[in-house]
């Protein structure tokens, strides 16, 4: 890992069959040790953005990893620097959690050594699914499979880690666990970019948040600056209250569609008072 790990994006465009999916995406420089949350409504292009960085869709522009433009890199070279966890869970396969993780570690070639196997087991253990290491993936629950997929994404130790909705199938305890793993990865000096739907979760864990809206970046900054009632109205089209918890992080309560005035609605709060 280079000591000066940085990541930035300039003017990234992605189109599928002449249809523009992302246009003019730029992210200012991000430093090692940061967690960046990527939020936005459905179909804003969050997954596509991560895939473009991982090299899974064709993109134009500039993506710099430690000052090097990685758009021209081969699949193999990108895999060395970037770990990616797709949104789709692993398909029905009788490969075990360990075998899946080993596949990620092996990549396109080479040999698996005993040290590799122990390293993969260690990674699986650290995600709290050590007991399941020798279970076939198809026998696991959705949440367990998500954790197994996370192990595959991070086991190579790549400096940039991209996670596409890693907590979508998880209960609260496991959500915390996954975000804590992300925190641990960042503390090791990696950069973690994570797509989340839960804004409160994003605000709680991320160092900075990027809101994607209509195929481009709506805003980027620390949670306080970005998660505002105004942004929720403009981007998600909802009337919401943004409050601040004791640690100073914002959290979000959604009242209804945009333009909705809470006093005209018999909310649960109000019913109780009546």
């Amino acid at each position, binding site marked *: 890992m280079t000591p000066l790990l940085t990541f930035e994006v300039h003017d990234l465009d992605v189109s599928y069959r002449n249809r523009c999916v992302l246009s003019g995406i730029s992210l200012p420089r991000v430093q090692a040790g940061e967690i960046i949350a990527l939020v936005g409504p459905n179909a804003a292009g969050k997954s596509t953005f991560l*895939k473009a960085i*991982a*090299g*899974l869709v064709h993109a134009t522009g500039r993506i710099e990893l430690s000052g090097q433009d990685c758009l021209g890199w081969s*699949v*193999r*070279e*990108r*895999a*060395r620097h*970037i*770990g*990616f966890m*797709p949104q*789709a869970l*692993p*398909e029905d*396969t*009788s*490969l*075990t959690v*360990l*075998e*899946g993780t080993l*596949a*990620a570690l*092996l*990549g*396109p*070639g080479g040999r698996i050594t*005993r040290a590799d*196997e*122990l390293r993969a*087991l*260690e*990674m699986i*253990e*650290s995600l*709290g699914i*050590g007991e399941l*290491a*020798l279970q*076939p993936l198809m026998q696991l629950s959705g949440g367990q499979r998500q954790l197994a*997929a996370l192990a*595959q*994404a991070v086991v190579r130790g790549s400096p940039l880690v991209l996670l596409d909705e890693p907590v979508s199938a998880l209960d609260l305890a496991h959500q915390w666990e996954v975000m*804590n*793993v992300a*925190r*641990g*990865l960042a503390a*090791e000096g990696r950069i973690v970019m994570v797509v989340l739907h839960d804004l409160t979760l994003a605000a709680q864990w991320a160092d900075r948040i990027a809101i994607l809206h209509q195929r481009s970046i709506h805003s980027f900054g620390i949670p306080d600056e970005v998660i505002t009632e105004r942004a929720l109205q403009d981007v998600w089209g909802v009337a919401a209250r943004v409050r601040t918890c004791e640690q100073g992080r914002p959290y979000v309560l959604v009242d209804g569609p945009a333009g909705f005035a809470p006093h005209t609605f018999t909310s649960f709060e109000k019913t109780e008072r009546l």
Partner: protein
Amino acid sequence: MDVSPQAAGSPEHQSVLQERWIAHRRIVRKRWFVVFGLAALAIVAALLDLFTGPAALPVNKVLHGLFDPDTLSRPMKVVLWQVRLPVALMALLVGAALALAGAEMQTILSNPLAEPFTLGVSTSAALGAALAIVLDWGVPGTGGAWLVPANAFVFALGSLLLLQVFAHWRGAQAQTLVLFGIAIGFTSGACLSLLQFIASEDALQQLVFWNMGSLARADWSSVGMLAAVVGVTLPFSWRAAAQMTSLRLGDERARSFGIDVSSLRRWALVRISLLAATGVAFVGTIGFVGLVGPHVARMLVGDGHRHLLPASVLIGASLMALASVVSKLLVPGVLLPVGIVTALIGLPVFLGLMLRRRSMQA
């Protein structure tokens, strides 16, 4: 990483990891035992195939005759060396080729029902054979005994090349490939029906018989050619095995591991084309081996291709050898087309296995 709930690096933690590692190794070793067991099964099945037949040829004479042909009388020598041995080897090779093609195809199409014939290979081969049998039209430069197999081969390969072109044009995605394959199969099927409609009674009978799949046409030159194709393809399959294992986790994941999935899929299609086209050209349509072989292998050794491919090859070979034995015994004195036997026996056995597996999981 230091996020584990237990202290990573503590002695207990290390011993837990060590135990899991040993358990993993034990699973791997067990799978290799299964593969060796299957190799033994294939040998036994091939020997049974050699022992059975209408000519009375005692077991000990067969065994002696294999190592020292001069101990046999001239007619026995002909029966063993010109009839039974080519048939037995052909059975092993066709079974191996179809099962290997099926296993790789199921992976690259991520479809458990895929086998060489899903993509229209056998119908295209049959169309090629029909052109030769009905219209006496063949690939230039071939003739005589080679006319039909050469035509079948060219058409089977052609259908898969066409598929490659489509794959290149539309991006080699699993679902698109399946759709194109089915379309090619149906188109060939329609042309085949047309030829059957205009065929003379004689040609029609010949065509129907070709379509049933038979090992009786095997001779040393066809055995040699199929052996060469299998021999050339196997090392490449083995080399791609680890990447194919990763593909079982999905396209995106495999690519994020650094694997060039399009090229992996394209080369797998080349191997499948060669294996299936050669196999079909020499023995005609053999159903179910390409489907059942890999399925049974998957049940026994799982999805890791380092074990799955050899297991599929050996199961396919054993199945064909056993089918060949049954085809000689089922109706005394009559050699049934082996394609009928594989379909007749393969399907119930397959269903039984699937149902048993279901109930075991439940």
